[in-house]
């Protein structure tokens, strides 16, 4: 399949000799340049295959690289390197190195779903970006990022907290992990209205799914299963 190469120079370098004489004619200027490495090697086509075989990543093949996702992207304004179209392009080519170079950007998706919503080809872009990121994590190509740490923290809290999340517990866990700083002023503004309205008492009540222990076992068993889009 022909792959458009638009964002990365395929000319790795130029050899320019001081003096070249061929058949008695001296070459100089541009005639004296030799390009090296006209093609980029090291593509791994299995990246596309593997991502297209996951439930989230199956729509990656429908992308026609129009860039609608990237033009409206929330994160793009904050991080010029962030671009769903680029991630999809690199993943389909199997340019692992290119993706690894973007590891400080790729986790930053805020899941605002503008890309998925607007894609004219029905690519679930937000899901595909997470599928690409998950591929990198699964193969140990990138180090863990704050987003993934928080996702895992969230899931852990749900599992250990009787199937429900509690903002206080999640907030406390995040503060403990050093993800967010809470000053005394924040604490006062937070707890004041909660105490005044009696909401605080509600929040402290243990809230739990009845049969959670059993459900938890089933979920843990299900997590081992490989999910395919079929």
């Amino acid at each position, binding site marked *: 399949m022909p792959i458009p190469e638009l964002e990365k120079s395929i000319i790795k370098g130029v050899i320019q000799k001081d003096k070249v004489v061929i058949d008695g004619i001296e070459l100089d200027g541009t005639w004296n340049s030799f390009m090296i490495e006209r093609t980029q090697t090291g593509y791994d086509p299995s990246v596309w295959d593997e991502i297209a075989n996951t439930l989230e990543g199956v729509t990656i093949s429908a992308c026609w690289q129009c860039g609608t996702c990237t033009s409206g992207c929330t994160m793009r304004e904050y991080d010029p390197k962030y671009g769903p179209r680029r991630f999809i392009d690199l993943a389909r080519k199997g340019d692992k190195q290119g993706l690894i170079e973007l590891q400080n950007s790729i986790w930053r998706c805020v899941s605002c779903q503008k890309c998925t919503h607007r894609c004219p080809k029905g690519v679930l872009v937000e899901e595909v970006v997470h599928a690409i990121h998950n591929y990198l994590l699964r193969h140990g190509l990138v180090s863990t990022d*704050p987003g993934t740490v928080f996702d895992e923290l969230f899931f852990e809290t749900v599992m250990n907290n009787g199937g*429900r999340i509690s903002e206080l517990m999640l907030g406390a866990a995040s503060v403990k992990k050093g*993800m967010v700083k809470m000053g005394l002023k924040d604490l006062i503004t937070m707890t004041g209205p909660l105490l005044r309205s009696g909401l605080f008492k509600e929040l402290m009540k243990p809230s739990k799914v009845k049969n959670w222990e059993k459900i938890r076992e089933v979920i843990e068993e299900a997590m081992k299963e490989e*999910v395919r889009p079929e």
Partner: protein
Amino acid sequence: MSAQVPYGKVALYPGCALDGMAKQYEVSLALVAKDLGLTYERLDDYNCCGALEVKNVNTMAGLLLPARNLALARKIGADAIMSACPGCHYSLSRAQYYLSKYPKLREKVNAYLEKMGEIKYDLQLMTIHVNEFLYNSVGIEVIKSKVKRPLTGLKVAPYYGCLYTRPKPYTLTGYLRLKDDPERPVFMDKLLEALGAEVVPFEAKTMCCGGPHVYSDPDVSINLEARILKEARRNGAEILVVDCPLGGVAIESNMNKIAERYGEDLRMPVVYFTQLMAFAFGHSPEEAMLTANLTNPMSVLKRYL
């Protein structure tokens, strides 16, 4: 009570938010629904919908959590499952999408649901949001007739959040008449106008608040939230009306930091739209739990008492 046009029997999926810091949302929703003669059944044994986080950790867990809630709603014979939190609405709709699209996956999920002791999910639910429910079930004229405390002259900016209308493959906005416009939603605007409030032009209606990264990428989310408030302030709004507990709580709890970094004039009270409706329907601020909000909505609402 007879089945409601157009949704039939409605199950309320509270989600963790309504049992947590957005308790006032549910309390005020109950008041409003009672006044309007609308009924729904609360799913008491619900579990977390997985939000935007669990799906990134594990695919199967990200589907089983919402699927169990869908099965619970079918167990009580509901035709529609209503969420107050757009995050839950998104998550349940997402599960619905994947389970309808992939039959083998559905079989697997159903097998696990049976192992948990739940019924199989038969895909017969419509996923709806409170906003759509209130707008479509009774009509604007009925809402107008219930107003005892018209909020004339109150300038409001309605903030819908990202996930109320997006993405269309899951929430079906733009495909169904009962659903809002995907890019420029208006249902909440109409509800607020019916209360007598003045809805200011507000382009940040569906702008992201950085919710999922409020802890992991705080600078970005604080800036995003400041942008929403700035847009509201620029258009002359006095109060930000939200239908999203994720955004509401994030904006409220970051308000000090926003004011510190981007200016004191961005400080603005945040209120759930059902609270405002309950207040306009004549309920006291205590009943509508307007005192529970971290920012103080009564500072602008007290002139209507």
